[in-house]
């Protein structure tokens, strides 16, 4: 494995600070749920590469959905056609493929949709079973790649907190309604920490296995720094880059988001949750 130079072959900016990048280079063998560490060839500032999920892989082309958060994502999102992006990967664990006779409920929030989209596309092309989606965000523009998801999954329920697209409310409520309507074999989820915590709890209550795709601060992305630790139910830690990012939800302690918060709003929201007991997935990490 190595760090390989890829070129931006397509770039599409979406409202809300999202950018879709298609990168072309040498074909990599990837599975849905895996991620890559990315940097531009911008010298040593920012220094560390940044982790991004694979949203789609077609031959030598990788599609990445970037939400602008800080300097690294800003620079990546600004990459233009022809620019070089250094790709390290694929890294980490992947989702179990959807078997032909399986019914899987997929709950995504914000940029957390990226690995789920890849899963949906891969399951479709492999003639997988039924993949039903719930895709939530704050408002209409926080549902990037909604059309692609709708095309890949059997059906998708869109949910926004402000009601500007789909149903008004929270992804977790839509999930509860789905579970009440039809039987599912298992759940997969990726999104803000608080949302995944709720999804994990609801899945456990329904007796369904649940795979989550974790986020953590990563310095290396391949198991050498031991930086990406998250509290585990066995009393130790799991490492998001090697034990994850895709991991059985039951292995994670779904307490508060590991502080300090990973996103712009998460710290504030955490305080609000503690103060007023509003639903845990009201807002949350930076994936919304």
């Amino acid at each position: 494995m190595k760090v390989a130079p890829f070129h931006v072959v397509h770039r599409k900016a979406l409202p809300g600070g999202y950018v879709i990048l298609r990168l072309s280079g040498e074909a990599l063998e990837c599975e849905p749920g895996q991620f890559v560490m990315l940097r531009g060839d911008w010298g040593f500032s920012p220094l560390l590469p940044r982790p991004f999920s694979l949203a789609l892989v077609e031959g030598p082309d990788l599609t990445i959905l970037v939400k602008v958060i800080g300097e690294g994502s800003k620079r990546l999102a600004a990459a233009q056609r022809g620019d070089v992006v250094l790709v390290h990967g694929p890294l980490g664990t992947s989702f179990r493929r959807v078997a032909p006779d399986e019914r899987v409920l997929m709950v995504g929030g914000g940029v957390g949709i990226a690995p789920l989209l890849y899963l949906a596309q891969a399951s479709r092309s492999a003639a997988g079973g039924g993949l039903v989606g719930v895709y939530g965000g704050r408002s209409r523009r926080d549902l990037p790649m909604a059309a692609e998801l709708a095309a890949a999954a059997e059906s998708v329920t869109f949910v926004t907190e402000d009601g500007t697209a789909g149903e008004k409310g929270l992804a977790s409520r839509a999930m509860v309604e789905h579970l009440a309507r039809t039987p599912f074999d298992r759940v997969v989820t990726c999104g803000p920490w608080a949302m995944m915590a709720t999804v994990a709890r609801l899945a456990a209550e329904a007796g369904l296995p649940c795979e989550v795709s974790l986020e953590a601060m990563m310095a290396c992305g391949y198991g050498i720094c031991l930086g990406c630790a998250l509290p585990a139910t066995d009393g130790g830690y799991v490492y998001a880059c090697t034990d994850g990012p895709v991991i059985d939800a039951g292995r994670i302690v779904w307490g508060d988001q590991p502080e300090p918060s990973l996103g712009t709003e998460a710290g504030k929201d955490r305080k609000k949750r503690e103060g007023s007991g509003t639903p845990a997935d009201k807002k949350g990490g930076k994936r919304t």
Partner: protein
Amino acid sequence: MKSERLRIGTLKLRNPVLTASGTCGYGLELARYFDIAVLGAICTKGLSLEPRKGNPPPRTCETPAGMLNSIGLANVGVEAFVRDKVPDLRAAGATVMANVLGTSPEEFHRIAARLDGVEGVHALELNLSCPNVKEGGLKIGTDPGGVREAVAAARAATKRPIVAKLSPETADVCSLARAAADAGADAVSVMNTIRGMSIDIRTRRPRLGNILGGLSGPAIRPIAVRLVFEVSRAVSIPVIGVGGILRWEDAVEMMLAGATAVQIGTASFVNPRAALDVLQGLEAWRRAQKCGYDDIIGAVRIDS
């Protein structure tokens, strides 16, 4: 060109490029990217008597030209290292420098004794300088008496070459280096990370779960070069330079300052092949200069 100086005690180094502890796992993680046997040595994650799970997250954050970490010396423990990692390291043909994390002279003694005689472990590096553990670590490492005791305790347990890794967080690193040499260390390495802090102004919280962390990366390189320069003039044993080396040019700078060998740390997070790239660049430069490593070590020109 043959080098007489590329050695740490009885260990002859193939070349002067090593990996730094805590930045290459147990070495095997890098073997997926290149042949780790070509490096001067692989320096493992710090090994404690018992496994340690480490500090609460977040454990890393990026800072200008570097990063902070508060890993807290998470490691599998010396027993599991010997059982699970050493056989694979041997199979890979790596030269292994085991980094030892004790919180007291007795612990340094016991860990060194456990590693003594283990086939495939070629040298020990004593971490006398970690900013991320409350006990031991910094305390042992910031006072010459503490350094002397810890090195002597390890020395009594093993004949393997011993490297004392020194803390930059003291007024006089040279006296720490002298204490290490007096107690029988075969080399010293400088530097470990230096403590720092970063605050997220939006949440007003420290960006590390442990509040403070160790600063590494190019931000600390001038400090490391200075320390290598000073320490190499204070002791006669070899000095290993570590801190902020990203490219082969940085390794040359460190050697000119007085380093016999260098360690590559944070650079491996950016590029898994960083140590190999530095080695190849260094070799090519040396050949073009038609000089041996012995001609570079400490060869900074100072007009008097």
